[in-house]
């Protein structure tokens, strides 16, 4: 629409009966989108309308002064949001358990000279208990409520898996730094196993996948290494490169496969 003439704006401002209803609507719609014409309107307002505006402004100022100050984005507020949205109570016991087990393994490794490093042996399994309970009906008291929200299912699983990794990875790095072990050998298998569990979860469900992975690793790698008191070839320094390749491939495949998997979004 072209800009209304000054006469039309004056007519609009003073409520001129000569202006018919469609014309008033057209001016009103135009004013909503045109700052220049609003400025011209402000210049042609009547004494009465200016008085009304002044009274409203006064009332508003008084109410704003009386109302409590708005809650700002304080640090404590962001912490509470982070804590409540990402690390809900259901994950906490599992994370505490994981960190405790890692601590015990480090302590045993320090006391028990001559044994293969327990930390290195259990490191790949560290995030799995947390991932297994991330989106389970029985593990989450508010499951019934959350299941009806758009974030239910895969979003929830990936979000909570990320939260688990955000705790487990720094914990592993800390323990690893204390024992002087190769950081890549601690973290790469841990990430590879998380991706593998999600991938396997698309077939059999995340909980079963996690239990399966933990059981096989314990039987095939941990038990024989402890019996033979030497480090398995799988976790020797030469295997580092293979772990890196495995991690990248598994993560990529997992990202491609998990979207749209019904098995992951509807746990039993």
């Amino acid at each position, binding site marked *: 629409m072209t800009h209304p003439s000054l006469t039309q704006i004056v007519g609009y401002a003073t409520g001129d009966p000569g202006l018919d209803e469609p014309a008033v609507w057209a001016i009103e719609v135009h004013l909503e989108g045109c700052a220049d014409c609003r400025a011209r309107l402000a210049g042609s307002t009547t004494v009465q309308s200016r008085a009304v505006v002044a009274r409203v402004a006064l009332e508003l100022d008084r109410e704003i002064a009386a109302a409590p100050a708005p809650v700002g984005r304080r640090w404590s507020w962001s912490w509470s949001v982070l804590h409540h949205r990402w690390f809900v*109570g259901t994950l906490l016991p599992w994370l505490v358990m994981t960190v405790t087990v890692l601590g015990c393994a480090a302590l045993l490794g320090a006391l028990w000279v001559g044994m293969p490093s327990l930390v290195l042996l259990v490191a790949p399994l560290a995030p799995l208990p947390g991932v297994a309970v991330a989106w389970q009906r029985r593990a989450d008291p508010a499951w*019934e409520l959350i*299941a009806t*929200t758009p974030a239910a299912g895969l979003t929830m699983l990936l979000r909570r898996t990320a939260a688990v990794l955000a705790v487990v990875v720094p914990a592993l790095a800390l323990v690893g730094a204390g024992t002087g072990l190769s950081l890549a050998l601690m973290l790469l298998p841990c990430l590879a196993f998380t991706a593998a569990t999600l991938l396997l979860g698309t077939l059999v469900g995340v909980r079963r996948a996690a239990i399966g992975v933990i059981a096989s690793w314990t039987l095939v790698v941990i038990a024989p290494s402890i019996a033979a008191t030497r480090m398995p070839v799988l976790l020797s320094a030469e295997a580092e490169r293979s772990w890196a390749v495995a991690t990248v491939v598994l993560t990529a495949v997992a990202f491609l496969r998990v979207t749209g998997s019904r098995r992951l979004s509807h746990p039993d």
Partner: protein
Amino acid sequence: MRAVSTAETATTTHPWPIHAEGLQVRAGRHLAVDGLDLALSTGVHGLLGPNGAGKTTLIRALATVLAPAGGRLTLLGQVVDGRCELRPVRRALGYLPQHFGYYPRFTVREFVGYMAWLKEMPKADIPGAVQRAVDRVGLADRADARLKTLSGGMLRRAGIAQAIVNDPRLLLLDEPTVGLDPEQRLDFREMLRDLGTDSCVLVSTHLVEDVVAACTDVVLVNAGRLVWRGTPEVLAAQGDGGHAGDSPAERGYAALLRQHRAEANR
């Protein structure tokens, strides 16, 4: 000139927010909803029925917790089956389960805010919407109390607050008045009438007087099937002095159920 996509030409309005045709839903192995036909429009609908009639199973299926085992279910114009994308429907959904678990260490405000976040509301709108929802159920003075310190009725109201926080177009309430005192029930009925003006509200309850006072429409189910549907006034006119009950609506309810059972046994 440009090509018009199907998404642009798709109808944005649909006659029934809830439309079930021959709906079957399993509760465990048992078919708790069996061949239910129901079309509900905007307004407050009361869902009545004896224990084990399939009310809770029906509400859970409408809330997209359970997938239908058979028949056809359309919510807000979207067909709900095992495979479809439920996100758009779930964004417009409010649900209060019969028994709901919660995180005891959350405050009321954190709990309602968490649910609003999961319902994917715009981030900037959440604090305002939470405050409005908490005000609306009369919990403003306990908004910063932890959930584990609340009484049963207050928890129920916190549950209602999380259900209405996203201004749902489809609101499903399973036994919402359990644990509310008489005054709160009056306020709740007032809120229901208010919500029913532009959303579809389905309230499951055992309290016939709640239905009569707050609902525009009564849906009576028994053994997983629709028995009767009509207005509360017509329900009240169904019974006479010979039927059990203390109010006309209760006598009407008893009369309809007895009549249905007699027909089923014949």
